[in-house]
Protein backbone atom coordinates (compact mmCIF):
# COMPACT_ATOMS: atom_id res chain seq x y z
CA UNK A 1 0.00 0.00 0.00
CA UNK A 2 1.42 3.40 -0.96
CA UNK A 3 2.37 5.86 1.76
CA UNK A 4 -0.27 8.55 2.39
CA UNK A 5 0.24 11.60 4.59
CA UNK A 6 -1.63 14.88 4.79
CA UNK A 7 -0.62 17.85 6.94
CA UNK A 8 -2.40 21.17 7.26
CA UNK A 9 -0.49 23.87 9.13
CA UNK A 10 -1.90 27.30 10.04
CA UNK A 11 0.18 30.01 11.66
CA UNK A 12 0.51 33.81 11.82
CA UNK A 13 2.09 35.79 8.98
CA UNK A 14 5.38 36.12 10.85
CA UNK A 15 8.90 35.12 9.83
CA UNK A 16 9.47 33.71 13.31
CA UNK A 17 7.53 30.62 12.15
CA UNK A 18 9.75 29.91 9.12
CA UNK A 19 12.01 27.55 11.05
CA UNK A 20 9.09 25.62 12.50
CA UNK A 21 7.35 25.10 9.16
CA UNK A 22 10.59 24.21 7.41
CA UNK A 23 11.50 21.67 10.06
CA UNK A 24 8.06 20.05 9.97
CA UNK A 25 8.54 19.53 6.24
CA UNK A 26 12.09 18.31 6.76
CA UNK A 27 11.05 15.75 9.38
CA UNK A 28 8.22 14.53 7.18
CA UNK A 29 10.61 14.03 4.25
CA UNK A 30 13.07 12.14 6.46
CA UNK A 31 10.30 9.70 7.39
CA UNK A 32 9.28 8.86 3.82
CA UNK A 33 9.91 5.16 3.31
CA UNK A 34 8.70 5.32 -0.28
CA UNK A 35 11.60 7.57 -1.29
CA UNK A 36 14.69 5.53 -2.12
CA UNK A 37 16.96 8.44 -3.12
CA UNK A 38 19.08 10.71 -0.90
CA UNK A 39 16.58 11.38 1.86
CA UNK A 40 18.83 13.90 3.65
CA UNK A 41 18.98 16.06 0.52
CA UNK A 42 15.26 15.73 -0.10
CA UNK A 43 14.58 16.79 3.50
CA UNK A 44 16.87 19.82 3.18
CA UNK A 45 15.20 20.83 -0.07
CA UNK A 46 11.70 20.49 1.42
CA UNK A 47 12.76 22.68 4.34
CA UNK A 48 14.20 25.18 1.89
CA UNK A 49 11.28 25.43 -0.55
CA UNK A 50 8.77 25.71 2.29
CA UNK A 51 10.88 28.45 3.87
CA UNK A 52 11.14 30.32 0.56
CA UNK A 53 7.45 29.97 -0.27
CA UNK A 54 6.25 31.02 3.19
CA UNK A 55 8.66 33.98 3.33
CA UNK A 56 7.35 35.02 -0.08
CA UNK A 57 3.75 34.76 1.10
CA UNK A 58 4.54 36.87 4.18
CA UNK A 59 6.37 39.49 2.12
CA UNK A 60 3.53 39.85 -0.39
CA UNK A 61 0.61 39.48 2.00
CA UNK A 62 -2.14 42.05 1.58
CA UNK A 63 -2.66 44.30 4.59
CA UNK A 64 -6.44 43.76 4.46
CA UNK A 65 -6.33 39.94 4.21
CA UNK A 66 -9.41 38.16 5.55
CA UNK A 67 -7.64 35.23 7.16
CA UNK A 68 -5.11 36.18 9.86
CA UNK A 69 -3.41 32.81 9.50
CA UNK A 70 -1.19 31.60 6.68
CA UNK A 71 -2.12 28.13 5.40
CA UNK A 72 0.30 25.43 4.30
CA UNK A 73 -0.56 21.88 3.27
CA UNK A 74 1.80 18.98 2.63
CA UNK A 75 0.49 15.84 0.95
CA UNK A 76 2.19 12.56 0.12
CA UNK A 77 0.19 10.28 -2.14
CA UNK A 78 0.91 7.92 -5.02
CA UNK A 79 4.61 8.69 -4.96
CA UNK A 80 4.07 12.44 -5.19
CA UNK A 81 4.96 15.06 -2.58
CA UNK A 82 2.79 18.16 -2.98
CA UNK A 83 3.29 21.30 -0.91
CA UNK A 84 0.86 24.19 -1.16
CA UNK A 85 1.34 27.63 0.35
CA UNK A 86 -1.77 29.82 0.26
CA UNK A 87 -1.38 33.57 0.30
CA UNK A 88 -3.74 36.49 0.30
CA UNK A 89 -1.46 38.91 -1.48
CA UNK A 90 -1.45 40.63 -4.85
CA UNK A 91 0.19 37.74 -6.65
CA UNK A 92 3.21 37.60 -8.93
CA UNK A 93 4.31 35.88 -12.12
CA UNK A 94 6.48 32.76 -12.03
CA UNK A 95 7.67 33.71 -15.51
CA UNK A 96 9.40 36.80 -14.14
CA UNK A 97 12.04 34.59 -12.52
CA UNK A 98 15.44 34.84 -14.14
CA UNK A 99 18.43 32.58 -13.75
CA UNK A 100 21.22 34.17 -11.74
CA UNK A 101 24.16 35.53 -13.72
CA UNK A 102 27.74 34.64 -12.80
CA UNK A 103 28.32 38.15 -11.54
CA UNK A 104 24.72 38.63 -10.35
CA UNK A 105 24.80 40.76 -7.24
CA UNK A 106 21.07 41.23 -6.77
CA UNK A 107 20.06 41.08 -3.12
CA UNK A 108 16.57 39.72 -3.89
CA UNK A 109 14.84 37.49 -6.38
CA UNK A 110 16.48 34.10 -5.85
CA UNK A 111 13.67 32.45 -3.86
CA UNK A 112 11.41 31.35 -6.71
CA UNK A 113 14.46 30.39 -8.78
CA UNK A 114 15.54 28.07 -5.95
CA UNK A 115 12.06 26.54 -5.70
CA UNK A 116 11.85 25.94 -9.44
CA UNK A 117 15.34 24.43 -9.45
CA UNK A 118 14.62 21.92 -6.70
CA UNK A 119 11.04 20.88 -7.48
CA UNK A 120 9.70 18.90 -10.44
CA UNK A 121 6.66 21.14 -10.99
CA UNK A 122 5.78 24.58 -9.67
CA UNK A 123 2.58 26.48 -10.35
CA UNK A 124 0.99 29.61 -9.01
CA UNK A 125 -2.77 29.52 -9.16
CA UNK A 126 -5.36 32.25 -8.63
CA UNK A 127 -8.11 31.39 -6.16
CA UNK A 128 -11.26 33.28 -5.18
CA UNK A 129 -9.55 34.75 -2.12
CA UNK A 130 -5.89 34.82 -3.03
CA UNK A 131 -3.28 32.55 -4.59
CA UNK A 132 -1.68 29.19 -3.99
CA UNK A 133 1.92 28.31 -4.79
CA UNK A 134 1.96 24.59 -5.53
CA UNK A 135 5.25 22.68 -5.50
CA UNK A 136 5.49 19.05 -6.51
CA UNK A 137 8.27 16.50 -6.19
CA UNK A 138 8.19 12.99 -7.64
CA UNK A 139 9.24 10.49 -5.00
CA UNK A 140 9.68 7.61 -7.45
Amino acid at each position, binding site marked *: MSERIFLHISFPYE*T*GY*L*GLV*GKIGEQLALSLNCFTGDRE*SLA*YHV*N*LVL*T*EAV*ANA*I*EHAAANRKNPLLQVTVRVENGLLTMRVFDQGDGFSLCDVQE*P*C*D*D*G*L*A*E*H*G*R*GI*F*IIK*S*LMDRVSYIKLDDGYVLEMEKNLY
Partner: protein
Amino acid sequence: MLTNIESKDAITLIQVREERLDAHNSPELKNQMLALLEEGKHRMIIDLQEVRFVDSSGLGALVSGFKNASARNGSLKLCSLQPQVQSMFELTRLHRVFDIFSDRHQALSSFQDLSGPA
Protein backbone atom coordinates in the same frame (compact mmCIF):
# COMPACT_ATOMS: atom_id res chain seq x y z
CA MET B 1 20.90 37.01 15.52
CA LEU B 2 23.66 35.50 17.62
CA THR B 3 27.14 36.42 16.45
CA ASN B 4 30.67 36.53 17.83
CA ILE B 5 32.67 39.44 16.51
CA GLU B 6 36.43 39.62 16.91
CA SER B 7 39.22 41.57 15.27
CA LYS B 8 42.62 40.31 14.26
CA ASP B 9 45.23 42.34 12.35
CA ALA B 10 42.65 44.87 11.12
CA ILE B 11 40.41 42.04 9.93
CA THR B 12 36.95 41.63 11.45
CA LEU B 13 35.74 38.09 11.89
CA ILE B 14 31.99 37.56 12.32
CA GLN B 15 31.01 34.10 13.47
CA VAL B 16 27.31 33.45 12.91
CA ARG B 17 26.06 31.45 15.92
CA GLU B 18 22.75 30.38 14.37
CA GLU B 19 21.67 27.12 12.78
CA ARG B 20 19.49 28.93 10.26
CA LEU B 21 20.12 32.08 8.25
CA ASP B 22 16.75 32.97 6.76
CA ALA B 23 14.28 35.81 6.22
CA HIS B 24 13.73 36.01 9.99
CA ASN B 25 17.27 36.81 11.08
CA SER B 26 19.23 37.77 7.94
CA PRO B 27 18.19 41.48 8.05
CA GLU B 28 19.94 41.68 11.42
CA LEU B 29 23.15 40.21 10.00
CA LYS B 30 22.94 42.65 7.11
CA ASN B 31 22.65 45.56 9.54
CA GLN B 32 25.51 44.27 11.70
CA MET B 33 27.81 44.06 8.69
CA LEU B 34 26.81 47.55 7.53
CA ALA B 35 27.41 49.02 10.99
CA LEU B 36 30.92 47.49 11.10
CA LEU B 37 31.69 48.80 7.61
CA GLU B 38 30.56 52.26 8.64
CA GLU B 39 32.97 52.05 11.60
CA GLY B 40 35.74 51.64 9.04
CA LYS B 41 36.12 47.88 9.31
CA HIS B 42 36.39 47.13 5.62
CA ARG B 43 38.07 43.72 5.76
CA MET B 44 35.64 41.12 6.91
CA ILE B 45 35.34 37.35 7.21
CA ILE B 46 31.98 35.68 7.82
CA ASP B 47 32.41 32.29 9.50
CA LEU B 48 29.39 30.08 8.69
CA GLN B 49 30.57 26.94 10.47
CA GLU B 50 27.45 26.69 12.65
CA VAL B 51 24.99 27.57 9.88
CA ARG B 52 23.28 24.43 8.60
CA PHE B 53 20.60 26.18 6.56
CA VAL B 54 20.61 29.29 4.39
CA ASP B 55 17.78 30.60 2.22
CA SER B 56 17.66 33.29 -0.46
CA SER B 57 17.31 36.03 2.17
CA GLY B 58 20.47 34.82 3.91
CA LEU B 59 22.29 34.79 0.60
CA GLY B 60 20.94 38.27 -0.12
CA ALA B 61 22.26 39.59 3.19
CA LEU B 62 25.74 38.25 2.41
CA VAL B 63 25.59 39.76 -1.09
CA SER B 64 24.65 43.07 0.50
CA GLY B 65 27.69 42.88 2.80
CA PHE B 66 29.91 41.96 -0.13
CA LYS B 67 28.68 44.92 -2.19
CA ASN B 68 28.97 47.37 0.69
CA ALA B 69 32.51 46.20 1.48
CA SER B 70 33.55 46.40 -2.18
CA ALA B 71 32.09 49.91 -2.45
CA ARG B 72 34.49 50.95 0.34
CA ASN B 73 37.49 49.30 -1.33
CA GLY B 74 37.22 46.56 1.23
CA SER B 75 36.58 42.87 1.06
CA LEU B 76 34.14 40.35 2.52
CA LYS B 77 35.09 36.68 2.47
CA LEU B 78 33.35 33.52 3.67
CA CYS B 79 34.66 30.46 5.44
CA SER B 80 33.67 27.08 6.89
CA LEU B 81 30.56 26.42 4.82
CA GLN B 82 28.68 23.20 5.55
CA PRO B 83 28.05 21.08 2.43
CA GLN B 84 24.35 21.95 2.09
CA VAL B 85 25.13 25.65 2.49
CA GLN B 86 27.91 25.37 -0.09
CA SER B 87 25.39 23.73 -2.44
CA MET B 88 23.15 26.79 -2.18
CA PHE B 89 26.02 29.03 -3.29
CA GLU B 90 26.62 26.71 -6.24
CA LEU B 91 22.95 26.52 -7.20
CA THR B 92 22.72 30.32 -7.31
CA ARG B 93 26.26 30.63 -8.75
CA LEU B 94 27.29 32.88 -5.89
CA HIS B 95 30.33 30.65 -5.31
CA ARG B 96 31.81 32.52 -8.29
CA VAL B 97 31.21 35.86 -6.60
CA PHE B 98 32.55 35.21 -3.10
CA ASP B 99 36.00 34.12 -1.98
CA ILE B 100 35.15 31.01 0.03
CA PHE B 101 37.70 29.31 2.29
CA SER B 102 37.57 25.99 4.09
CA ASP B 103 38.40 27.53 7.48
CA ARG B 104 39.05 30.89 9.14
CA HIS B 105 42.85 30.47 9.14
CA GLN B 106 42.92 30.20 5.36
CA ALA B 107 40.58 33.16 5.09
CA LEU B 108 42.80 35.23 7.40
CA SER B 109 45.92 34.24 5.45
CA SER B 110 44.33 35.36 2.20
CA PHE B 111 44.27 38.94 3.48
CA GLN B 112 48.04 39.02 4.05
CA ASP B 113 48.75 39.57 0.37
CA LEU B 114 46.20 42.32 0.08
CA SER B 115 47.47 45.83 -0.36
CA GLY B 116 45.73 49.14 -0.62
CA PRO B 117 43.30 50.90 1.67
CA ALA B 118 41.49 48.83 4.30
